[in-house]
């Protein structure tokens, strides 16, 4: 969510969410569940997936 996109009415924001959902569906072909969050609130990816958990007590 950015300030330009934000509105004081729920209906406006829900329309925006639907627009994003439909746009993703038309481009990617899959239905995505969209959550609207404030800027910079999504944590950065920490790189590769951690597939090995080291439980050794050295």
């Amino acid at each position, binding site marked *: *969510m950015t*300030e330009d996109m*934000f*509105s*004081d*009415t729920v209906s406006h924001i*829900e329309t925006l969410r639907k627009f994003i959902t439909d746009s993703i569906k038309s481009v990617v072909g899959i239905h995505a569940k969209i959550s609207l969050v*404030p*800027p910079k609130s999504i944590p950065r990816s920490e790189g590769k997936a951690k597939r090995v958990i080291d439980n050794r007590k050295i």
Partner: protein
Amino acid sequence: MFIKQISVFLENRKGSLREFTELLGNENINLLALSLADASGFGIARCIVKSNDTDRALALLRENGYIARTNSVVCVRIPNRPMAFSSILSVLEENDVFLEYAYSFCQSTLSDAVILIRPSDKDRCEKALSENGVTMVSQEEVDRF
């Protein structure tokens, strides 16, 4: 005759509303009226503060990462008796003015109820209300609450 309102986008998570109210409270900004709208996954807080606190509140919220903006709402004085609000709604209906939302002040210096309304068309709303003798409340009056 419009009142300035601050709207804030809130995340749907524990503590988010408290943090927002604390931020304003710590700067001695008092909420004269507050409305919360919840949707799936987010909320919108709409509030009225004194007019000389509005810019400060907005800047403070933005500095702290909030999405916030101001817009105008209509403030009406409604006699404290049955059917008073519905008669105002009838005026708006007859003039094709629809309500996006409405909420009231926590307290005021007036004996009547004071309701804030967000109409679909605020100019038409103001014209319809004034032509039908509905008392609107000015920003100056709100500042004295």
